[in-house]
């Protein structure tokens, strides 16, 4: 599998370490009400869907950036990749805007 790295172009998937579902980027608030339950769901439960899956890959033997790769896990076709940092910042931005509105 070749992963289209947004900065480095096509890279062999072997250069990466796999973490799992991209939702792992949204860590629960440890101080919130019901945090133990939220952390249990965060750490252990997965949607584990068939078909299109967004997932975290770490470019360990490359530029050491975290990517969010969109992949069809029923066929291994890779549909796109973006920097996890961009996704996280955008999500934070959306939350701030949502809070202001």
């Amino acid at each position: 599998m070749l992963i289209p790295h947004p900065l480095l172009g096509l890279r062999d998937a072997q250069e990466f370490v796999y973490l799992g579902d991209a939702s792992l980027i949204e860590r629960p608030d440890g101080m919130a009400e019901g945090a133990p339950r939220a952390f249990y769901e965060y750490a252990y439960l997965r949607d584990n869907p068939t078909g299109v899956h967004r997932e975290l890959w770490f470019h360990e033997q490359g530029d050491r950036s975290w990517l969010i790769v969109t992949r069809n896990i029923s066929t291994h076709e890779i549909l796109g990749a973006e920097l996890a940092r961009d996704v996280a910042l955008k999500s934070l931005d959306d939350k701030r805007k949502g809070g202001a509105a």
Partner: protein
Amino acid sequence: MRFSALRVIAEGLTGHRGWGPLWRNPDPKPEYDYIIVGGGGHGLSTAYYLANTFKQARIALVERGWIGQGNIGRNTTIFRSNYLLPGNEPFYEFSMKLWEGLEQAFNFNAMVSQRGIINLIHTDGQRDAYRRRGNAMLLAGADAELLSRDQVREICPFLNFDNARFPIKGGLMQRRAGTARHDGVAWGYARGADQAGVDLIQNCEVTGFRIENGKIRGLETSRGYIGAKKVGVAVAGMSGKVMAMAGMRLPIESHVLQAFVSEGLKPVIPGVITFGAGHFYVSQSDKGGLVFGGDIDGYNSYAQRGNLPVIEDVAEGGMALMPMIGRARLLRAWGGIMDMSMDGSPIIDRTPVEGLYLNAGWCYGGFKATPASGYCFAHLLATDRSHDVARLMRLDRFESGHVIDEKGVGATPNLH
């Protein structure tokens, strides 16, 4: 129809005209007391023990495709009971005892062959760990034997004992472990269940659960609605997708595991051998092919096929362990979808939906568990209580903290 030597001789003399199909192909009835979802090894053995051992009736098994087309036909056919933890070892030893009486029990030749397994030791630390594991096995009533380097050499003279990085220092042996004909296991259980009155309904995909007031009522399937008092789900790699239809998220990810077989060779490997420094294990089938495998590919997959880097990794492990394997040509490689749980151990438990039960999370060790998994799941379905050896294999253990983590790597399914 019972199989016997006399029957084989009689059929041989009359042109083999008396053999019939091993099981019926019935249409679904409107309602059953029990429906097992999944016609793989675990589903079939569940149906078999539910009908034969626990004497229940009105049982159906529904399967999306054909009987035994999933992981029961895709594994490396090894059974063993060399686990460490109290939540696992008694269960696998129970499974071992069922393997030992299996062919007589279901009157079918599953080619169960107790040819032994050796886990190789390469360091002093590993010897300590295997000594401890061997003691844990003995405490659970299993057999275990610590072999010296010379004893290993006597059994497997062809191994690379003086590899510069990973010299072989000894091994942990379980003589009662072995291999079986995996398809024969599926067919034996299917036939045994069918003869006890279980309806094996093939080409019948579950498309939804009918749940009212938190209680199961029946299944929506591609062949219409089927009512059920109790439903047991044993669908391995598809657990996440099936249980999502009941509104549940599971502590499971689906990954692909590859396995390999070489061209047929004369008998060379006496039992099962596992490399202790990389992930590689090998045995030889009765047809002569070397059957071997290694790690899962490491990313979520439902594709039933893997990629080349893992093939290279497995081949490297093989070459490090027994350089002669380099002379054999690889004949076939294939993949199966593993239900990798968050602690590497399985789940046999009820679910929050009354009457809906789950058997899942076998990671890549499901084949050896086939008899005990079915027995314990049938026990749970029939009596509503967990069997003693499976009582720790609970669905809620991740929330309560009672995980059964043999490898100690936590909630990283691709590392178990």
